[in-house]
């Protein structure tokens, strides 16, 4: 009886790259671990239908196979065994690739039929399925990760050592928005564990303003390029990087900075792949802010149904996400904003009561609305609002200081907290995504919340990379709502 084996998988690479390897009938010794040597008999090209390849396997076995079909349009190759030391009789196999259009991946189907000597059916089926096909899937994945298909057989390792010209924004002395100067530069090649990406969009965050002003010199040594998140396409990867291939759509966030650039080299630990549905600009606008909302709600604020949250800058990038997400998780949310227009936006994103206060007066309204105050305050206001914040806090409440738009907070007296048995936190988002797994997990929740409608994409204000100074002016003016990105 004829045996049939079918195995299939999905390879995280565009079909052109997978097919470039598989259409070469003489390539197996470069990527398949069981094949020791491969050569085409006679003077035929490995793409000539009818040619015969001669394999020596690592275990000493010997196989000759003939190419019966090569179809570049259907991405299909059929071949048969003409002679072998393994007792596979009348063996005919077909490799078929199909594009996964949703995500630029490749579906790979490998099947064969053959006869065997009596009693060896099962053993040989398993050998073909596991040692040839399944191992082949893994081996080819590895081969592609190493970028090996991008070079001609036998050539030196892929050259990734060249810097790539780029546009970037540099701060040479701390100061106002004009300290941001766009210039031509070079993005260094990815070192071990790094990848280099062509950025389409870089997120603008308030922390960039603090860095530009010189408030945290350790995070932006001079001269330096600010920017802690971005999105784009992988150009090349350094040694030891797995899971990313040139052409992959990705986003990153990290405290090392350097994001205001058209090409950026970053540790692969900081990078996540993007679902097809998430645009580059959306990702650059929302990764850090979404991750921030995620850890605030889940880890730090431990949001519960009925919990009372006060969200400042409720129409800002983080504020809008927090309002919508907290409401979906059952919390009650009061927000503060500086204008009526922002109040409308915050309400549209789920904020149940919005306080319009250009001068940081809100405590009495919060206490009236919530009874004895807010259980959790997410504070981006800083010094000018600190007394009001403490007043607005409920007993055993948690005051989370996320930013200091009005100026650095004065040192807090621990005895002040005693009177309300309060908790004060000063978190940094990067600590909550210290490993790639944690970053990927939080990012996944953000993209899912966007996909299922829990979160709406906030308004995104776009500026050219060269107009970074203008973007900072806008952010500091308190006149923007939603998120800002620089487009490269």
């Amino acid at each position: 009886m004829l045996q049939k084996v079918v195995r299939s998988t999905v390879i995280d690479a565009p079909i052109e790259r997978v097919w470039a390897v598989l259409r070469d009938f003489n390539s197996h010794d470069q990527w398949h671990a069981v094949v020791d040597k491969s050569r085409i008999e006679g003077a035929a090209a490995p793409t000539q239908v009818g040619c015969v390849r001669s394999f020596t396997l690592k275990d000493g076995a010997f196989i000759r196979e003939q190419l019966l079909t090569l179809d570049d349009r259907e991405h299909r190759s059929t071949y048969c065994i003409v002679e072998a030391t393994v007792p596979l009789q009348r063996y005919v196999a077909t490799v078929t690739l199909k594009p996964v259009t949703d995500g630029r991946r490749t579906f790979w189907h490998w099947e064969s039929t053959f006869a065997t000597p009596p009693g060896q059916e099962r053993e040989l089926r398993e050998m073909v399925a596991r040692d040839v096909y399944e191992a082949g899937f893994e081996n080819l994945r590895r081969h592609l990760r190493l970028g090996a298909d991008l070079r001609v057989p036998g050539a030196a390792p892929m050259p990734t050592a060249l810097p790539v010209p780029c546009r970037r924004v540099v701060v040479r002395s701390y100061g106002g928005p004009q300290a941001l100067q766009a210039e031509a530069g070079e993005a260094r090649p990815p070192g071990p564990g790094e990848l280099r990406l062509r950025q389409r969009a870089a997120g603008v965050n308030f922390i960039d303003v603090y860095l530009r002003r010189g408030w945290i010199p350790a995070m932006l040594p001079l001269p330096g390029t600010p920017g802690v998140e971005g999105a784009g396409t992988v150009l090349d990867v350094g040694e030891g990087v797995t899971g990313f291939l040139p052409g992959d759509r990705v986003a990153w966030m990290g405290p090392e900075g350097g994001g205001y650039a058209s090409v950026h080299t970053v540790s692969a630990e900081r990078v996540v792949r993007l679902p097809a549905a998430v645009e580059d600009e959306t990702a650059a606008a929302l990764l850090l802010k979404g991750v921030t909302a995620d850890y605030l709600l889940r880890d730090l604020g431990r949001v519960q149904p009925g919990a009372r949250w006060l969200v400042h800058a409720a129409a800002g990038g983080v504020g809008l996400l927090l309002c919508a997400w907290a409401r979906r998780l059952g919390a009650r949310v009061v927000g503060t904003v500086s204008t009526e227009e922002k109040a409308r936006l915050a309400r549209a994103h789920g904020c149940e009561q919005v306080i319009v206060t250009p001068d940081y007066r809100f405590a009495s309204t919060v206490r009236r609305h919530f009874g004895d105050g807010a259980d959790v305050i997410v504070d981006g206001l800083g010094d000018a609002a600190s007394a009001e914040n403490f007043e607005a806090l409920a007993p055993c409440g948690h005051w989370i200081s996320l930013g200091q738009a009005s100026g650095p907070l004065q040192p807090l007296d621990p005895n002040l907290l005693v009177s309300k048995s309060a908790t004060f936190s000063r978190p940094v988002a990067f600590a909550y995504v210290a490993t790639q797994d944690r970053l990927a997990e939080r990012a996944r929740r953000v993209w899912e919340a966007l996909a299922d409608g829990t979160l709406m994409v906030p308004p995104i204000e776009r500026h050219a990379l060269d107009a970074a100074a203008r973007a900072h002016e806008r952010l500091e003016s308190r006149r923007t709502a939603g998120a800002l990105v620089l487009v490269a």
Partner: protein
Amino acid sequence: MIRLYVSSVIDASADSVWARIRDFNGLPNWHPAIADSRIENQEPADRVGCVRHFHTRDGGMIRERLLALSDYDYACTYEILESPMGVENYVATLKLTPVTDGDRCFAEWSVEFDCAEGRERELSDLIGQGVFQGGFDALKRAFARR
């Protein structure tokens, strides 16, 4: 003649996805763009040749005839008899293939049709993105592992 091809990977076995999409009268159960559906002349929905009569959420009425149905290949082919889209000779196939490594399947939706000159781009977006990718996105959400 315009050809479109959209494919995706869904995190569930071909058997379970097929159970969801096999019903020729079942589009409203899984496709977010479809409001209602019935089979004309009280025929069973798996009788090849039957006609489904449905409305999209924006009110358009579409009639489609089942041309082929294969529980062996997890495939279904149908043609449009009547629609407001302005397409002719529209024959589409929806097909699943198991992915043997992992409990998931490869889904393909392809179509050939003719249309008036100048409308190719608009119809390609509407059908490829709106109908096909929109359907796959809904299936991916429905079968997403929590």
